[in-house]
């Protein structure tokens, strides 16, 4: 049970980040427990979150949940704790304790505390300006539009940065490997591809790539335009189809 408790605590620490918002929430919960008079509000926004938190920290509960769902999503139990409404409610209640201009000052101060304790979502490094209304890289759109044949399957090997987006845009483009390659821990399940690894190299081994691409029925091979090549794709039956969005697209002359 001790190791399970440690595991639960690791999950909790990972979820709460700096712990500032969690601290505010616990303070709000205690303050509301002391001051809230409405019985229904107490049940729904004080007792219920407390029960959920108790369950979350119970090692036996964690063990049972993990048994059925795996370890990756246990943190979602914490979604059942209504942090946003409880904190917003407590903040308004605190403001109501004051009158006149003091109320405005308290409100602004509480807003400031929340802002300083939390983290603005748009500061996430995973955000970037959308390149189009599909919210997939424009290069993927251009390449898919160029190689797609309506109602027919086309198979292409893409570099890692385009892999997650290609099939979001076009269901008709198949790939010899997919997003499995991008998650290193999934390699234990046998998700490996030499072709994928070769396309990541600084200098592309043209002969081996052409051989593998043909073996895996790829009609096209796509890679960043600036990559160094060990030879010429033309020598292996491929021809430059186009250069689109900074990517060279080579077509196998021997494919259908």
């Amino acid at each position: 049970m001790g190791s399970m408790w440690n595991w639960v605590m690791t999950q909790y620490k990972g979820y709460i980040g700096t712990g500032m918002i969690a601290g505010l929430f616990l303070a709000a919960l205690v303050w509301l427990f002391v001051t809230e008079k409405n019985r229904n509000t107490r049940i729904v926004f004080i007792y219920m979150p407390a029960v959920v938190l108790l369950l979350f920290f119970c090692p036996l509960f964690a063990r049972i949940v993990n048994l059925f769902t795996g370890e990756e999503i246990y943190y979602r139990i914490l979604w059942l704790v209504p942090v946003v409404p409880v904190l917003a409610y407590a903040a308004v209640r605190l403001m109501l304790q004051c009158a006149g201009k003091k109320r405005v000052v308290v409100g602004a101060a509480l807003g400031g505390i929340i802002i300083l304790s939390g983290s603005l979502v748009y500061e996430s490094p995973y955000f970037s300006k959308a390149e189009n209304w599909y919210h997939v890289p424009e290069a993927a759109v251009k390449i898919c539009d160029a190689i797609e044949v309506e109602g027919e399957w086309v198979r292409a090997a893409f570099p890692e940065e385009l892999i997650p987006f290609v099939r979001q845009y076009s269901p008709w483009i198949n790939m010899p490997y997919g997003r499995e390659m991008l998650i290193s821990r999934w390699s234990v399940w046998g998700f490996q591809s030499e072709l994928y690894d070769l396309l990541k190299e600084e200098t592309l081994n043209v002969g081996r790539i052409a051989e593998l691409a043909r073996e895996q029925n790829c009609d096209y091979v796509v890679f960043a335009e600036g990559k160094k090549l060990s030879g010429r794709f033309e020598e292996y039956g491929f021809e430059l189809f186009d250069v689109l969005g900074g990517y060279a697209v080579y077509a196998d002359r021997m494919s259908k």
Partner: protein
Amino acid sequence: MLVLQIGILLLFAVAVPLGAGAGIAAFVDRQEKNAGFMWMAGYLVLLAVFQILSVPLIIRGARFSTLVLWFAVLCVLLSAAGVIVWLYRLHKRPALQAVRGKAEKGEILLWVVFGALLLLQLFMACYLTFADGDDAYFVTAATIADGTDTMYFYLPYTGGTTSLDMRHALAPFPLYIAFLARITGLHTATVAHVALPVILIPLTYCIYGLIGSRLFKAKRRQLPVFMVFTAILILWGNYSLYTAETFLMTRTRQGKAALGNIMVPAFFFLVYLVGERLAENKKVEISLWLLLFCLTTFSCLCSTFGGFLAAVLFGAFGLCALTVYKRWRLLLPLVLCLLPAAIYMGMYMIMK
């Protein structure tokens, strides 16, 4: 063309749920007869219907077009029925309008601040893109369904054919994206990354607004303050990658985001209404239990884990409410509301 597409999107994402929700609102206490309640209720009902309809069709290997046709027809029928029921009940028992005093200047200003914060979020949802690897599964599953007219027949990551993946087939939220794409003619990627956040972020705030309106029922003027704090908490809620607020702002198109940001707050709102009736010794309307039943079904649509989360919530509420109110008659409807979770989790255990 684009105007027409947006019009159809608004019809199915706003007007149709409003109509269907009106039918439910007609049977609840007068405080809940407002557009926000109808929108939330309509969404819960329609997406529960979507889940009930789609899972058997997926298992049977039906075409996606069949699902689109049936669901579109049901949407129109439920919406029309909802409006007719609403008008009939209104005619029979005219709803009393709550008398509201004129809004103060400060109150208006706070609503403006909240509106600006909401608009900012909607603009950012369109202007920025968030690179999330799971989209390669969920958005692609929608793109495949719309493009190839199949459901869970092809592997999203690579495109090869596959045996039915029960884990995802039992929680087919991506098919709802594909449905919206098919009826509007918009690309599934556009619906997933742009249209859905523009619909679901306001829906989440609508539910928080409903919660606030109950918490401050005697002090309605505090509602805009509550909403401003809510918006700040969501905007600055990215204290880790895992929070529900982060999921709302970054992964709105994934079922798990809907689970954490629509299902969970809607549950708290609905059980708050149930608690109000218990506290006042009033009968809990069947329509509220029906909404909680739909909520459980909706949670199963969002994620295979959704049914379990619903069970934890119902369990926590049951424990607290039974301890405080000592109404054992609550047990039966609570258990009945959990039936969808039991059924879909049972199906998963048997068929996985």
